[in-house]
Structure formats: structure tokens, C-alpha cells
């Protein structure tokens, strides 16, 4: 049977752990099963109905991978390992239970950083103890050249994932300003460092410890440098991209260990993150490269069409009572939530508003833009948290045709995704981005904290000044609460 793990191909391993040879084909099979279970875990997410079963498949796959590893290796100290799993498990579990749903983007970024760091630690450990990983060459003294390159690659991607995710976390969590930090000559520096890392990984073919450490240090550095120039609005792409990197890091480690579960998982996660980045970029009509190059939202010249002129344009201010009265009489209300809703934690009162409207016989729908919020699917999770049934929530393409028949478009915390300039103004930085056709609705309510602030793209929005628009200037949660009071009267 050719489907045997790495151990049989390296004679030195047979001497180290002879007991393993007999179990090995089974171990390889078990890892393969774990990999298949991970595929099924993602497959389950094709619909909310099957998703929880999918998650269970994922857990089962992980259990199989861990148990297989433990029973096929001689363990020097089991208590320490159990202790390490318990410590990590408790921290992870408690965090997962306590985290607010609005903080999900930060949490995911933090988790990515851990995967990256774990991959680096594993790579360094493998460098210190190559025997245990079965990557020694025939002489039993040196690490196989090929394994060194795979290791170098894994450590590099892991380190970039770690430091990049730390910055993404700090930006999302507000520890660091969301605005881009632009270093002079950053493109040259970044490309130079990346090229240097690639060269060093190739040179690592010849074993020199200094090279290994240089790869580690440079990769940590480039992770920071790559993410600091990227602004808050582009975070959905960054989080997806780092998701992808954490996968590629796992895959590279899988190559070093010849482990099927790791390779399959790495490929899955890598493609998943890459596809999400692609979807996000497309939803903003931006190229991946322009996002990575960073600086979006920092350029004061962008959207200069507004400038001083916009202040003078007339707009109408509405009250909670106006909104309540008009929506009560409406046949259809489409709600468009954005990041502002998440910041104001307004999802629960919003659901309450929808319930009150439904009592008045109003048909309520939610419209979600792919880049609403700070990570893919962010709004869907928040609405789900507020018990909004998922069959009332629609994607951009599915609902955009309905605005023409809608009586009210209710915009809460969104801005750029309803900006008609994306369709008409070629000079606008968001030109070409698919947006909701809210201007076709009979009445528009636009909840915003003040007229001063603009969307992340820093562009003025014509919707503010339209005849059928009423601006509801207040904190989103406060405003919806007031509307609810007026509706209940």
C-alpha cells in the first residue's frame, strides 16, 4: 500500500519510533477522514438548516486528528499536554461564550493571530527537534532540504498572519486608529522585504540557523507593515485575507509533516479566505491590489466634489414621530443596516420596531450589502442575534429590484452602500460599487448621528438632500427606541 505516512520513507524514523510503523497506514487513514469531515463542516454552511450539523462534523474531525496524533506518538509527558489543552480550551470556550456579537470581527482577527503564532512555534520546534517530525535526511543529522524550505515557508506565512492579525485586531477593537498609517516609500519597503523573505526561504535550502531566524523576524515585521496602511473600511477584505493566510500556513506545515488532515484543511481555509476577499473586493468594485496597497479613505482629495458646497445644500430633518407615522401607513418597509447599527448596538430595538410594524400589517424586509459591517456576513449575524428570521433578510441582488415598489427605505448606520454616486459619478472613489437603489423608494429615512460625518469612503451622499429623504439625526439605538414609543402609542 503506497498510502503510508512519511515515516516509512525515512529510515531514521523507523529507528526512533519503531512502534509507529504498524499503526501508520491507519493513522494516515484517520487523518484523511478528519480532512473529509472538515470539508463536510464547510459544506454544511450552504444553508442555516444544515449548518449546525456541519459544525459537529468539524468538531469530530478535530477530535480524530488530535486523538490519532496522541496515540501514534510516544508521549514523554501526557499530563503537561492535557494541561495545555485544558488551559487553552477554557480560555477559548469562555471567550466564545462571553464575546458580544458586535465584537465578532475583532475576535476572528485575534483567533487568526493565534493560528499564525501557533504555526510559527511549531515550525521553530520542528527546527529544534527535527527527529520528532521525521524530517531528517538519510544521515540522520541534517534536516531534508525540501523540508527546510517547506518549514521556512510555513513559518513565514504564520508570522505574517500573526503580526498582520494583531494590527487588524487593534484597528477593529479601537486600540489603534482605523485610519491608514502611511509610511513614505512603503511600497518599495514592503516589496523589498517580501522579496527578501522569498530569497531567504530559497537560500534556506542550505541549512544556516541565521537564515531561519532572519525569515522569522522579517516575516513578523512585514505583517505589521502590510496592514498598518490599510484603513478601517477595507477591514472586511483584510480579515478575509488573513483568514486565507492562516490556512496557507497550516498547509505549509502539513507539507512539512506530510499530514493529510493539515494539507486538506489548509487548502480549504486558504481558498475560503481568498474567495471571501474576492467577494468583498467585488462588492466594493476595488481590485485586491488596491486594497493591499492601502491608503483608502486617507486621501483628502477624494470626494472633493462635496467640499464646501455640500454644507449649503438643503436637507429635511425628520422626527421619530414622522417616521413612526409614515412607516405605520406603509405597505413595505426595507431596512438597510450598516456598521453604525453595530456600533450603536441597535439590532434588538430594530427587531422590536419590525415587530411593531408587522402588527400594523407592514411587510418588513432587511437588505444586506456584502460589505456592510467590518467582516463578511457581520450584519446577518447581528440580525440573527436579535432573532430576525433569516428568510426576511435579503442579499443585494435579490432585493434591489424591490425598492421601486417599496414605500419606505429605512437606512440605519449605512452610508456608502446607498450612495447613488457609485452609479453616476465617475470621479467618485466608490464609482462602480454595486449599491442599493434606495432613491427609488417613495420615502427614505436616514438615521445618522450628525450631518457632519461621512461614510468610510469620505464621500458626500446625494440621498441626504433628496426630496423624499428625511434625516433622523441621533444615535441609532436612541432613535429607534423613540420610533418604537411612537409606534406603540
Amino acid at each position, binding site marked *: 500500500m503506497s*498510502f503510508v505516512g512519511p515515516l516509512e520513507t525515512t529510515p531514521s524514523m523507523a529507528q526512533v519510533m519503531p512502534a509507529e510503523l504498524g499503526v501508520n497506514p491507519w493513522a494516515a487513514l484517520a487523518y484523511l477522514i478528519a480532512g473529509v469531515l472538515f470539508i463536510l463542516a464547510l459544506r454544511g454552511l450552504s444553508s442555516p438548516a444544515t449548518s449546525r450539523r456541519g459544525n459537529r462534523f468539524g468538531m469530530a474531525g478535530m477530535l480524530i486528528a488530535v486523538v490519532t496524533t496522541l496515540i501514534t506518538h510516544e508521549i514523554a509527558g501526557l499530563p503537561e499536554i492535557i494541561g495545555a489543552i485544558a488551559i*487553552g480550551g477554557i480560555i*477559548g470556550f469562555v471567550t466564545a461564550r462571553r464575546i458580544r456579537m458586535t465584537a465578532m470581527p475583532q475576535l476572528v482577527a485575534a483567533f487568526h493571530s493565534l493560528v499564525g503564532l501557533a504555526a510559527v512555534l511549531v515550525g521553530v520546534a520542528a527546527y*529544534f527537534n527535527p527527529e*520528532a517530525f521525521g524530517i531528517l535526511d538519510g544521515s540522520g543529522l541534517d534536516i531534508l532540504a525540501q523540508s527546510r524550505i517547506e518549514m521556512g515557508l510555513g513559518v513565514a506565512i504564520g508570522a505574517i498572519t500573526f503580526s498582520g492579525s494583531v494590527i487588524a485586531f487593534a484597528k477593529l477593537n479601537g486600540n489603534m486608529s482605523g485610519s491608514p498609517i502611511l509610511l513614505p516609500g512603503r511600497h518599495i519597503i514592503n516589496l523589498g522585504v517580501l522579496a527578501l523573505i522569498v530569497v531567504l526561504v530559497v537560500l534556506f535550502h542550505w541549512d544556516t540557523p541565521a537564515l531561519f531566524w532572519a525569515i522569522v523576524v522579517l516575516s513578523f515585521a512585514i505583517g505589521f507593515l502590510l496592514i498598518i496602511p490599510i484603513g478601517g473600511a477595507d477591514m472586511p477584505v483584510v480579515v478575509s485575507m488573513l483568514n486565507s493566510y492562516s490556512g496557507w500556513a497550516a498547509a505549509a506545515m502539513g507539507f512539512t509533516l506530510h499530514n493529510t488532515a493539515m494539507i486538506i484543511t*489548509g487548502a480549504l*481555509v486558504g481558498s475560503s*479566505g481568498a474567495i471571501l476577499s474576492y467577494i468583498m473586493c467585488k462588492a466594493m468594485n476595488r481590485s485586491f491590489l488596491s486594497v493591499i496597497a492601502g491608503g483608502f479613505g486617507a486621501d483628502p482629495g477624494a470626494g472633493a466634489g462635496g467640499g464646501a458646497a455640500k454644507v449649503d445644500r438643503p436637507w429635511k430633518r425628520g422626527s421619530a414621530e414622522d417616521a413612526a407615522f409614515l412607516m405605520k401607513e406603509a405597505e413595505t418597509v426595507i431596512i438597510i443596516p450598516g456598521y453604525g447599527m453595530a456600533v450603536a448596538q441597535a439590532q434588538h430595538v430594530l427587531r422590536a420596531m419590525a415587530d411593531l410594524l408587522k402588527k400594523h400589517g407592514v411587510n418588513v424586509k432587511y437588505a444586506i450589502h456584502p460589505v456592510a459591517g467590518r467582516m463578511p456576513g457581520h450584519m*446577518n449575524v447581528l440580525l440573527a442575534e436579535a432573532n430576525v428570521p433569516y428568510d426576511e433578510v435579503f*442579499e443585494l441582488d435579490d432585493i434591489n429590484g424591490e425598492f421601486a415598489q417599496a414605500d419606505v427605505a429605512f437606512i440605519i448606520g449605512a452610508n456608502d452602500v446607498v450612495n447613488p454616486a457609485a452609479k453616476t459619478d465617475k470621479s467618485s472613489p466608490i464609482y462602480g460599487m454595486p449599491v442599493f437603489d434606495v432613491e427609488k423608494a417613495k420615502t427614505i429615512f436616514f438615521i445618522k448621528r450628525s450631518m457632519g460625518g461621512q461614510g468610510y469612503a469620505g464621500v458626500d451622499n446625494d440621498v441626504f438632500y433628496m426630496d423624499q429623504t428625511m434625516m433622523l439625526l441621533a444615535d441609532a439605538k436612541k432613535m429607534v427606541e423613540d420610533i418604537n414609543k411612537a409606534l406603540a402609542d
Partner: protein
Amino acid sequence: MDFISVLSIFVMACFVGYYVVWSVTPALHTPLMAVTNAISSVVIVGALIAAAAQGSPVARWLGLGAVVLASINIFGGFAVTERMLAMYKKKDRK
């Protein structure tokens, strides 16, 4: 397992990943990220090997550290995915 077999598995898995991920409904993209995060912690396999092996104490401690980090991710990732997925409900029949 030679390099080409490993590479074949990798390339095939990339294709599987491509098709499976496109079939994920956009409403579940956040749980998708959380669960991919959890499963990418399968690097714990490497961490366990390092933590279990005799020989280099440095490698053992690094391995144990990686086991802690990966465990945070595994338990945290699956638990938070489960929590999110439990919230997705269909409309009540009235």
C-alpha cells in the same frame, strides 16, 4: 508519501475548497470565518508532536505553547460558531 502525492492532495483540496466555499450562503460568511479559523488550528497536530517528543526541551516547551494557542482557537472557534449558528432561525409560523 512523496512530494508529488502530497502536492496532489493539496491541489485537489484547493479545488474542493473552491467549490464548497462558493456554495456557502453569504448570510453565513461570519460563521464560515469562525469555523475555518477553528479547523485551521489543526496545526495542533504539529504542536502535539513537538510537545510529546523527547529530545529537545526547547522544542517541547514551544510545542506546549502552540498546543495552548491552538486549543484556544479550536474550543473558541467551534463554540462561537455553534453560538452564532444557534441564532439563525426561520420565521415563526403564525
